[in-house]
């Protein structure tokens, strides 16, 4: 009804040649707009996160506003469980769910190349195909180069199975492509509504909020909701384990690369070497983090999620877990005849992970960070509104 009125007004205004038409909202975006209209008249949730303070600076919600709000939302669930208008109320306000639906649309819309944005919609299939293809690739390569998985030349020597340069040649382009695709996507998101000049304070605050997952703290520091109205820091902690575990693994690979090229030190490295220490701690953190997140995902309140995105969420978690477990297994079984199989499994998982980075759940981190930076910039500018009850 509201949209109908807006369209009528717009049509009338157009008839008089007064305004430039705004881009029509999708059904999911319209739903966010409807809910924000209710929330903006209530505002009880202002203390929970960044979404509601950003909302109060607006009276109307155009596409770019909705995209910003959707990506600011961490799906912590606090506003759902505290909402006097949540189902079964006829207003049926469920901000986390409405935001989750639009978030997925923004990833698709801003994806580069645009045709691949559709992959977000079929995440289960995308991940399964990527993993199968990557595994097949390495198994086939192993067969081709060595005549089979169990024909490994010497214990502990995986470069003998896949020469170092071959691995670099396979992974670098995929990784660089992922960076490029995500970079272009987030640039389009940024440019859809540039927030203004960047300041050091804004960058500092956004960085802090991203790295500390401040908005999974619930505004009071006791954490977010999962299966009911009780707060818990588990999600924040498991996410930290996952994220920092991933970064440690990444650091392990980076250090090893430097060893290889700068110092000429070839893998395998000893258990007390820097790459190993980083990799083992990162791998263990990643295993613990992803298992925890998966467990929380299984128990999450059905209203506090977009059920259609479960394959994406769980698929991504599973792939990270597979990457970590296969990496640790590879280390432990390096001296055995399972080396070849483990290597193929690990490289296949890593390749599938890298290949799907720009078209899967990983994107949430990039767009969320950009949204937080946008908000940190915007909030430092004077508001255009003079709202008051006085």
């Amino acid at each position, binding site marked *: 009804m509201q949209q109908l009125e807006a369209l009528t007004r717009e049509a009338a205004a157009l008839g008089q040649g007064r305004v430039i038409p705004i881009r029509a909202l999708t059904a999911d975006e319209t739903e966010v707009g409807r809910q924000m209209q209710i929330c903006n*008249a209530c505002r009880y949730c202002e203390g929970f996160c960044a979404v509601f303070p950003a909302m109060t600076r607006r009276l109307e919600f155009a596409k770019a506003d909705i995209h910003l709000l959707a990506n600011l939302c961490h799906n912590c669930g606090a506003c759902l469980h505290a909402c006097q208008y949540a189902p079964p109320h006829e207003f049926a306000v469920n901000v986390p769910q409405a935001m989750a639906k639009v978030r997925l649309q923004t990833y698709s819309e801003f994806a580069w190349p645009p045709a691949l944005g559709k992959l977000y919609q079929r995440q289960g299939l995308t991940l399964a195909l990527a993993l199968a293809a990557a595994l097949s690739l390495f198994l086939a390569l192993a067969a081709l180069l060595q005549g089979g998985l169990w024909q490994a030349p010497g214990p502990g020597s995986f470069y003998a199975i896949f020469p170092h340069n071959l691995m670099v040649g396979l992974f670098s382009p995929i990784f660089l492509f992922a960076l490029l695709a995500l970079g272009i996507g987030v640039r389009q998101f940024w440019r859809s509504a540039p927030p203004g000049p960047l300041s050091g304070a804004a960058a500092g605050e956004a960085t802090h909020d991203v790295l500390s997952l401040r908005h999974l703290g619930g505004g*009071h520091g006791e954490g977010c909701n999962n299966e009911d109205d009780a707060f818990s820091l588990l999600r924040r902690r498991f996410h930290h384990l996952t994220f920092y575990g991933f970064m440690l693994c990444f650091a392990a690979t980076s250090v090893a690369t430097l060893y290889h090229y700068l110092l000429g030190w070839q893998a395998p490295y000893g258990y007390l070497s820097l790459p190993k220490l980083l990799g083992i701690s990162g791998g263990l953190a990643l295993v613990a983090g992803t298992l925890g997140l998966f467990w929380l995902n299984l128990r999450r309140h059905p209203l506090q999620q977009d059920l259609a995105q479960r394959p994406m969420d769980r698929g991504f978690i599973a792939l990270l877990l597979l990457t970590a477990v296969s990496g640790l297994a590879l280390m432990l079984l390096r001296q055995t005849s399972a080396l070849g199989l483990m290597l193929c499994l690990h490289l296949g998982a890593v390749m599938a992970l890298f290949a799907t980075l720009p078209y899967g759940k990983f994107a949430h981190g990039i767009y969320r960070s950009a949204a937080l930076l946008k908000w940190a910039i915007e909030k430092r500018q004077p508001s255009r509104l003079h709202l008051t*009850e006085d």
Partner: protein
Amino acid sequence: MIDVLVIGGGNAALCAALMAREAGASVLLLEASPKAWRGGNSQHTRNLRCMHDAPQDVLVEAYTEEEYWQDLLKVTGGATNEALARLVIRESSTCRPWMRSHGVHFQPSLSGALHTARTNAFFMGGGKALVNAYYRSAERLGVRVRYEAPVDRLELDEARFVAAWVGTERIEARSCVLAAGGFESNREWLREAWGLNERGEYPADNFLIRGTRFNTGTLLRFMQGAGADMIGDATQAHMVAIDARAPLYDGGICTRIDCVSLGVVVNREAQRFYDEGEDFWPKRYAIWGRLVAQQPGQVAWSIIDAKAVGRFMPPVFPGTQADSLHELAVMLGLEPSTFVQTLERYNAACRVGSFDHTALDDCHTEGLAPAKTHWARPLDTPPFYGYALRPGVTFTYLGLKVDARAAAHFGGRASDNLFVAGEMMAGNVLGKGYTAGVGMSIGTAFGRIAGTQAALAAIKEHSHAAA
């Protein structure tokens, strides 16, 4: 047998249950609603009016007992009990650490509500977050909670509570706290209370209920029938003018219309009927429900022009918009020539000085009845907007007379083991009028008192039984 039976599931009931449990009593709480709707009107609240002598976490400056009392005296026009009111005020200055210990979080005033930064402590996430925290704490402490358990009647032995009946189930307890809310969602009772007006209308039929659909006043009526001492007038309630498109029940905060003082308000006859700029809106919003209730058809329209946009809290539904006053009248279904005449007369009467919505400014009308004494600016800048208003009842004030122990009274005699808290006794302190956050102050203070007294009464029974 259970020690303390708490009937109700909102803030006052939960405060009572928690205090009784902390005092060592076994407690059963009966909430009439399903779990999803638990908490009564408390789920729609947002803050607590708090006395404080110095700045306190989320509260700035000071709000002394005397100032709080004067505010209460002003809004009630003297329809209050000073001793009980001061009890509530003092309790409001000390209850928050206890609230925090049960998981309630406070935050500074919300944007758009900065005028309450000194007087009101806001609940982070609002009243439902508070209610959720109390239920979690109650369950952790071992309070038994039953949902969908509406109590139909009590079994009394003169002034003593014996048992409560939920359908055919009889529940005995050593003492009882009644905290089951007012009767605002009982349409027949509202109709009966407001009666037939001089125009032959039942005004209450056009009221919307901002609060819970579960406050049907069953026990209030039972107690009235059982000869309990009552207080207050059945037509008195916290009543504001809300958007006429609001749902029949549970519209809550978002259905309010905050642009009254920025424009004019006309009734069905397209006539103004009250000074829209009498005082700051937070000091006047609570009288507009009754004002609209007195108009023909219990409806009115708040009219603003483009100058007001962005200066008031955004309403939940968009206003009716038109490029001329005539067109707006047609869209609103008001007689256009009268409407335009009313607005033109108002516009011509405006004496615009320097407009300042944050002060009682000098923009006023001259030679107009009723006058608009502040913020009077001609409505001359299209587009024009109209919002239809209806009376919205939050809660009713008719209640049970209590003393400082929260005890129910029968013929002037206090009950030993039946106590009352929340809306069922708010009328002792708030006979009429309203000021933000005071309902929660009363509910919290008397909920805590009632819980403590009920636990004491139950322990006394124990020792009687042992002796």
